[in-house]
């Protein structure tokens, strides 16, 4: 039965703007392909059931839970993980806001939360606090109670609107 076998597929995709080739099982979680095969451990596993959002990445411009994406679906995709958010040494406005506002406590939800925030701001550059809460409802945080996180996202969108385009 199980010990050997299992088809291995070879997929090509872009991860953080770099071409990547991944060999893996077709039903393997994208989360594991990123963390183990590509050694991008910034994306986290919190629940393995698509509830907590700690595994969230951007795939073809949309936020997805990578624990629910089979590797086969990543073929040809453009993926952004937390490692791809900062531009070299320059942090993204959302990252800076999280630091300034105390949006990260234990930090385990933070990568997914930041990607969810970036996804929101790209769709809604000037969200209300309710918009922010709705957009982040799929990212569970046990430490902060969300107050500092909402303030961080609101700060980031103010900064983004003031800053020159990147």
């Amino acid at each position: 039965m199980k010990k050997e076998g299992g088809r291995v597929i070879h997929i090509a995709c872009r991860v953080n703007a770099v071409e990547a080739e991944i060999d893996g099982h077709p039903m393997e979680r994208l989360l594991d392909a990123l963390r183990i095969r590509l050694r991008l451990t910034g994306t986290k596993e919190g629940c393995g059931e698509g509830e907590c959002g700690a595994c969230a990445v951007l795939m073809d411009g949309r936020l997805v839970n990578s624990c629910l994406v089979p590797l086969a679906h990543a073929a040809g995709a453009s993926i952004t993980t937390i490692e791809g958010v900062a531009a070299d040494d320059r942090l993204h406005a959302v990252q800076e806001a999280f630091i300034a506002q105390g949006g990260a406590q234990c930090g385990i939800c933070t990568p997914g939360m930041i990607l969810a925030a970036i996804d929101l701001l790209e769709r809604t550059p000037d969200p209300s606090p309710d918009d922010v809460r709705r957009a982040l409802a799929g990212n569970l945080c046990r430490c902060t109670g969300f107050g500092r996180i909402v303030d961080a996202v609101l700060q980031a969108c103010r900064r983004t609107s003031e800053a020159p385009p990147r």
Partner: protein
Amino acid sequence: MRSYVPSFELRSPATLAEALDLFAREPGRWRPFAGGTDLMVLLEAGRLEHRDYVSLWHLPELRFIEIDETSLAIGATTTYTDVLRHEAIGREFPMLGLAAAETGGVATQNRGTLAGNIANGSPAADTPPALLAYDAELEIVSARGVRRVPYEGFHTGYKQMDLAPDELIRAIRLRRPPHPGRQLYRKVGTRRAQAISKVCFAGRLTLVDGTVEDARIALGSVAPTVVRARLAEAVLRGRRLDSGTVADARRALAGAIAPIDDARSTASYRSRVAGNLLEEFLTGAT
């Protein structure tokens, strides 16, 4: 991850015809895999019994929203995000847009599909009550051809449906122009977001001179399948919405549902809330 991942197969045919061919040649071997938001959860829990899947995710023939004079057709792998962002759906079939916005969070909405929501067969699914209330029709396709069936009646029992092993849902059709009138979609979940429903209500009614001309009452999570409360609808037809009518409709509703106790809620809570939601809808108290 509680499954032996190497033992699962996921094939990615390039066209719908190729996919249907696989289903036809090896009936029973292959099952469809759309966005994976239900199947991957089962995989990780060690409860995905079937092994071989055909991916529909990339098939261009299945992801579309097409409007003509008489219908709005939504392709099977249209995501919740696509549905809730679509202007015409929001205008003409608002309950469907609301249902899509209530399903999971943003990340789930970006990957979950309308046909997946239907074919997963859960009585707690969020879009089926809205689809029932809109008299939706399913377009079902196989290598043998195409057939159209009313969505009502598609679910024949708990996780049972009118879908042969070689068939796929190709599209969901809604009739245009939509019926005017009062509508209420309300999902009562375990929390305000990212929740499985305890009771889900979709109601639509048309009043002419204060009398009910037509009504649709659909509910999720209160029976082995999504249900239409036809008895309650019959009570309403031709009557004015006074307190007597509301009470009679509520009584008739009780006969249409069979809620259970489970890890999320109780039968008595579900019964009571279903009746309360019907009353809320009929009294226009929203």
